């Protein structure tokens, strides 16, 4: 997530220097020429850091800082003074109003970056487009829950992912953990004593380093008022107990903006393979479907003209799966691609029970399916066309 830095200085030169200093970092620079403009932009854009000069026309930095700290909605925004005003007494007076740091002009850009980096997590802007994190990349998950059995259930349920799931049981431990290693996602149990979960949520949201971290509320399914409160407060998602770990994993992947397409699609040198997992919940089907167009385009662009649809892991066939398979077959037909199905005895038997799928024929393995390409006719294609 891009950090927003607001520079409030009547000198355009200083604003340009600030912009230049942060150019190599993933942040957006907002500019204001005096305190009045600064307050207006702060209220509208809610920056993650304000760099504030003192001597300015219209409204000086001290007045702006005082007004900012008196405003409940803005007072949590960290302010760093960047000013030629460096007399000891004046610095102390301004510091007492509430600033996170103080840089006296003249200043080196490195010093400014170093101090800003202590307040926000400055990340270099790589010249190449950032690699999208995939479901197979490591992630750090923090579970704040005082019931070890739940933490263990989540750890077990997500074990097949390269995610590190850590459990802590108190607000203090959670804060310490986040200060040490900001996690990629936090799950907070609303059943922690004394509304600790809501306090923790607010603390994490006011800390620039965890401001944009997805935070899930973990709550008993029947506790509707707590769910309502969590929703109002702005938790990223509500996860109910008893846990549906497939749904949880899907929500987590979405919240962390992970590319999950590799779960369902793989491009081999001569064939596109579509795989459906054992349990195809509505969210799994929606996720898989959302990548379909893009994956077929990539296959066509790569000169691939064959598709294997592998549902051998599927436990049971239902209408959602059938719709998705028809969708894939239709795309194959439109693109003139050959396709073949791989199934298991249970699914093959279930297919016989539906009018539309009765004629589908299946192979036992990818190799067998691949070998079928080029032969006169494909049984599955008959049904799909």
């Amino acid at each position, binding site marked *: 997530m891009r950090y927003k830095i607001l520079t409030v200085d009547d*000198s355009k*030169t200083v604003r*340009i220097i600030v912009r*230049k200093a942060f150019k190599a970092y993933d942040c957006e620079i907002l500019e204001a020429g005096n305190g009045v403009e600064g307050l207006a932009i702060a209220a509208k854009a809610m920056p993650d850091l304000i760099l504030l000069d003192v*001597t300015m*026309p219209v409204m000086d930095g001290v007045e702006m800082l005082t007004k900012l700290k008196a405003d409940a909605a803005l007072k949590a925004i960290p302010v760093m003074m960047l000013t*030629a*005003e460096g007399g000891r007494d*004046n610095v102390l007076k301004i510091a007492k109003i509430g600033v996170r740091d103080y840089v006296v*002009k003249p200043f080196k850009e490195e010093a400014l970056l170093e101090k800003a980096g202590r307040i926000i997590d400055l990340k270099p802007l790589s010249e190449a487009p950032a690699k999208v994190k995939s479901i197979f990349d490591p992630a750090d998950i923090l579970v704040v829950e005082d019931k070890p059995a739940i933490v263990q259930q989540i750890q077990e349920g997500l074990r097949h992912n390269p995610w590190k799931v850590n459990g802590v049981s108190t607000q203090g431990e959670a804060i310490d953990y986040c200060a040490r290693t900001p996690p990629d996602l936090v799950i907070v149990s609303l059943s922690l004593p004394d509304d600790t979960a809501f306090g923790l949520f607010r603390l994490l949201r006011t800390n620039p380093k965890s401001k944009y971290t997805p935070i899930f509320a973990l709550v008993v399914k029947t506790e509707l008022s707590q769910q309502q409160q969590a929703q109002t407060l702005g938790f990223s998602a509500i996860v109910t107990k008893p846990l549906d770990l497939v749904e949880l994993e899907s929500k987590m992947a979405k919240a962390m903006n992970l590319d999950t397409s590799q779960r369902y699609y793989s491009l081999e040198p001569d064939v596109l393979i579509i795989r459906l997992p054992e349990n195809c919940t509505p969210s799994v089907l929606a996720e898989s479907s959302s990548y379909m167009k893009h994956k077929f385009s990539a296959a066509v662009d790569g000169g691939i003209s064959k598709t294997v649809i592998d549902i051998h892991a599927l436990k049971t066939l239902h209408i959602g799966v059938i719709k998705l398979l028809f969708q894939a077959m239709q795309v194959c037909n439109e693109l003139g691609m050959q396709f073949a199905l791989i199934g298991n005895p249970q699914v093959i038997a279930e297919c016989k029970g539906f009018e539309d799928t009765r004629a589908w024929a299946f192979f036992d393995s990818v190799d067998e399916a691949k070998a079928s390409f080029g032969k006169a006719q494909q049984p599955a294609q008959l049904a799909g066309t």
Partner: protein
Amino acid sequence: MPATQEISDVRIHDYIKRAVCDVFKTMVGTEAVLVKGPDEAAAEPWPPQHTATTPAKPQVVGTVGFIGDVNGLIYLYLDLEFARICTCHLLGMTESELATHGDEVVNDAIAELTNMTVGVFKNSLCDTGFPCKLTIPSILRGSSFRIVPTGTATRHVFHFDCRGHRLVTDILMKFAD
């Protein structure tokens, strides 16, 4: 209290030398060397006036005041060529890029350099018991002019050399009532 009487010439010399050297080294990446103190500077009024043989060099002059227990005003003289070099360095621009931006950018950059220089000088005054605040900078441009202070002000002029360019600070401090 006649505050300025308590600020010795030696202190003013030290404060302005530190201010100019610090600002130009940090922001412009150049060493400023003090070449003339008030006594020698008095013999060479600044800026040089236009004569039949020597045309006056265009000057960009930044001004920032300080008000409080001690009141004053400092003028920072740079010839236009040096002002443009400083601006390019400050903003990370080439001369040709600067040419597309016009005089305002140079004015703003010199105003900020003056603000920083007077800021360091003023902070030294504050820390030695003369609390005061900075005023907003302003800019003068011209090639043949002279600033004449009122009779009640003390004046300290210092000449610095920066990469062969002359940088002059003219400090006017007024006795408090």
